[in-house]
């Protein structure tokens, strides 16, 4: 099993490694999602002030966390691609953007549907909500810019600049509730304080967060593999793959 291209083309080795990992992460995502929903709806108690409406938290918080985390990872890989001209890292960055945008949208959507019954409004222009909306626009900007540029190398560079400039927004979102007056409440879970949630509620939220992680890994791996095939279609290893030589 000595295949010479294996050493030189890292997208190729990633392609096969990712292909082997996807089924495991899919299984984990499904198990965690079922467990998280079970804990969220059948174990976690009713909240003392928000009643059952607080159960939106089990998607809202994981979605908001993922949207910020994925943006940071996307900016990191886009930056690595820009600095070291590594093909694979730019492809991973492009693969992350749609999933990150989806989670940012979900955080905003579920926030609106939570805010209406609890706060009395779908939307306010406070610092937390506005900065999360800006995050969503940054994802959209990154994706449409990359789609608008035909040459993948130039698209990667342009995207990396947006991604890196926009990364300052991530700490702004996170600390907005401490730095400024907002309608949005402060963090229930943080590094420096003990969580301000009952254990069953917290575990439901954390399991759903893990499920969101696994889901993201699966979707991003699949999308990266597709981008690899799209971009490397003229290389020898993809032609061999297409002819079934590698099977």
């Amino acid at each position, binding site marked *: 099993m000595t295949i010479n291209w294996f050493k030189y083309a890292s997208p190729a080795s990633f392609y096969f490694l990712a292909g082997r990992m996807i089924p495991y992460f899919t299984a984990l995502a499904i198990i965690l999602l079922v467990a998280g929903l079970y804990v969220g709806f059948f174990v976690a108690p009713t909240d003392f002030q928000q009643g059952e409406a607080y159960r939106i938290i089990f998607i809202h918080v994981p979605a908001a966390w993922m949207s910020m985390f994925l943006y940071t990872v996307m900016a990191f890989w886009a930056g690595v691609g820009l600095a070291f001209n590594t093909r694979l890292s730019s492809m991973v960055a492009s693969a992350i953007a749609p999933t990150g945008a989806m989670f940012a949208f979900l955080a905003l959507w579920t926030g609106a549907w939570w805010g209406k019954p609890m706060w009395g409004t779908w939307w306010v222009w406070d610092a937390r909500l506005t900065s999360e909306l800006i995050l969503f626009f940054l994802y959209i900007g990154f994706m449409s810019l990359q789609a608008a540029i035909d040459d993948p190398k130039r698209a990667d560079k342009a995207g990396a600049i947006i991604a890196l400039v926009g990364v300052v927004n991530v700490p702004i979102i996170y600390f907005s509730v401490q730095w400024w007056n*907002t309608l949005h409440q402060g963090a229930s879970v943080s590094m420096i304080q003990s969580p301000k949630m009952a254990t069953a509620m917290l575990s439901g939220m954390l399991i759903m967060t893990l499920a969101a992680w696994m889901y993201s890994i699966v979707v991003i791996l699949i999308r990266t593999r597709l981008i690899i095939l799209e971009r490397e279609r003229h290389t020898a290893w993809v032609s061999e793959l297409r002819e079934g030589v590698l099977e």
Partner: protein
Amino acid sequence: MKPRHKKMAVIALSVSALAVSVVLVLNAFQSNLVFFFTPSQVVAKEAPIGKSFRVGGLVEEGSLRRDGDGTTMKFAITDTAEVIQVAYTGILPDLFKEGKGVVAQGKIADDGIFYADEVLAKHDENYMPPEAAEALERAAKAQKTSFKQ
């Protein structure tokens, strides 16, 4: 759609998305970083008196009452240092309660009352079952009485 047109549309979309986000950034950072003023800030004339602005704090315990016509609510917003009297006609959010957080938007009239046209509830970051909340409250009361003794 021809590919060239499609590309133009995509470029137009990305440019407008970026423009929208820039406008949002400026809008947010100019006017909404101070989302609300505390009663102390209002008393210290830091709030834009004469214009519409937001006051945030806690609904003072025992301050909520209905006016004669039954639709206008009067209550006080406090930050434990200063108190602002508020009048509001409309539906209050479900979480509006005495002793809980509130953000009201409106204007201060010459009579010194803040006439709100929007009242939002601001809840805290604690989540627990009602029994736990009651237990906490009992514990807090018990501590208070033990201090008195």
